[in-house]
């Protein structure tokens, strides 16, 4: 019963969560890995997930934490280089010029701002939900989003005429 519910939940959310992880900066392969790890953690505590007022918020929280953990491990393993590598998405053969611009602009954001943008504008969380997912005050969410939007608006990788949300 409990596993069936888990199966249904995963079937319904898998693609969106993987794509969200890609927008956070993972390669598609890493993204599936991160989401799989996060959902496995959720399954271990599934009874707790089910009891949560907002099941998605719980899962999103675990996803964000898993992503941060994984990145941190990568940073520790990696030797710093002078040049930043291109983001994973920019290598996708089908990427259009717009897509590359978006990837670069997202990559230029700080980690917390990028997470905020993905939660708000891709996973469609409200600011209140985001505060709960990120474990920060609603004011912090607001300021992260606002700084992120300002940065995206000023980013030369995105054509300013096409970003009406900054004006």
């Amino acid at each position, binding site marked *: 019963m409990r596993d069936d519910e*888990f199966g249904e939940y995963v079937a319904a959310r898998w693609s969106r969560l993987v794509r969200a992880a890609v927008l956070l900066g993972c390669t598609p392969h890493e993204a599936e890995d991160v989401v799989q790890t996060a959902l496995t953690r959720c399954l*271990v505590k599934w009874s707790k997930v089910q009891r949560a007022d907002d099941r998605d918020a719980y899962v999103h*929280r675990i996803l964000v934490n898993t992503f941060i953990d994984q990145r941190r491990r990568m940073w520790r393993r990696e030797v710093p280089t002078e040049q930043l590598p291109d983001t994973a998405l920019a290598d996708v053969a089908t990427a259009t010029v717009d897509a590359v611009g978006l990837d670069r602009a997202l990559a230029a954001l700080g980690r*917390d701002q990028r997470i905020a943008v993905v939660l708000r504008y891709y996973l469609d969380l409200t600011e209140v939900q985001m505060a709960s997912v*990120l474990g920060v005050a609603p004011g912090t969410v607001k300021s992260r989003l606002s700084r992120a939007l300002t940065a995206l608006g000023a980013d030369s990788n995105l054509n300013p005429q096409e970003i009406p949300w900054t004006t």
Partner: protein
Amino acid sequence: MDDLNTLLEERVADLPVGAPPIDAMRAAVRRRRSRMTVLGAAAAVVVVTAGVVALDAFDSTPDPKPPVASDPPVATDAPPAGYRYVGIGNAVIAVPEDWGTNDTECGTPMSDTVVIDQGVICMALIPRPASVESVEIAASRIMPPGAETWSTFELDGQPALRSPVKQSRASVFIPGLRALFTAESSSADADATVERLLDGITILQGHTTVPGYALLERDAYLAQLQELGLAAEVVVEDRKVGKGFVLATDPAVGSVVSPGDTITVTVSG
């Protein structure tokens, strides 16, 4: 704002995503659970022999609680992969497995570490090195200073308080369990790290943790173990300290144990 929605949506819309590996996830959880069950069974066997030792070690109380090692281990008490739980009573926090315990100099963490039951420390202001994360676990019968302004929330059914992050440091206090967790970081993303560490606090359902012994005498500590339903095996070591003090435990303070487990307690003789 719709444009950013659309931009992100279109960016990944065509990304091929494989089928969810549900079976692999279930298998991973099953493996973890069977590990827990094996550990639980081993503990049950140990108790039969260790119960006698426990009585010998603490014979002033004739009627110890029966060990309850036969209770099935609760699967949700397992920490996430790559983490271990450490705590006080049944309140625990998940820390990465490679973290040390009490890696401090005069109380200042020198590398990623749990700080628990430190006892007496020297008085000196040693600056914290960069990129060091720590979690301090303490028993507190009183509200920590300033806690009246902390936000209240419910943690696995327990009322709890959480402080805002100030100077890369924040705390969670669980009054009902008298448990105070304080996370601190000197990493570049200190505030987020602190928040994330504190998110790893949970209340165990079927396990407890090895209690602290700093400055406790043997009998007081053995009484505590007995209260928690833990058995004790006492090893006496001749050291140049006062007789009858607890010197060490195995498993270490704060480790997760099941009721009925035997704790090896080294005391000065």
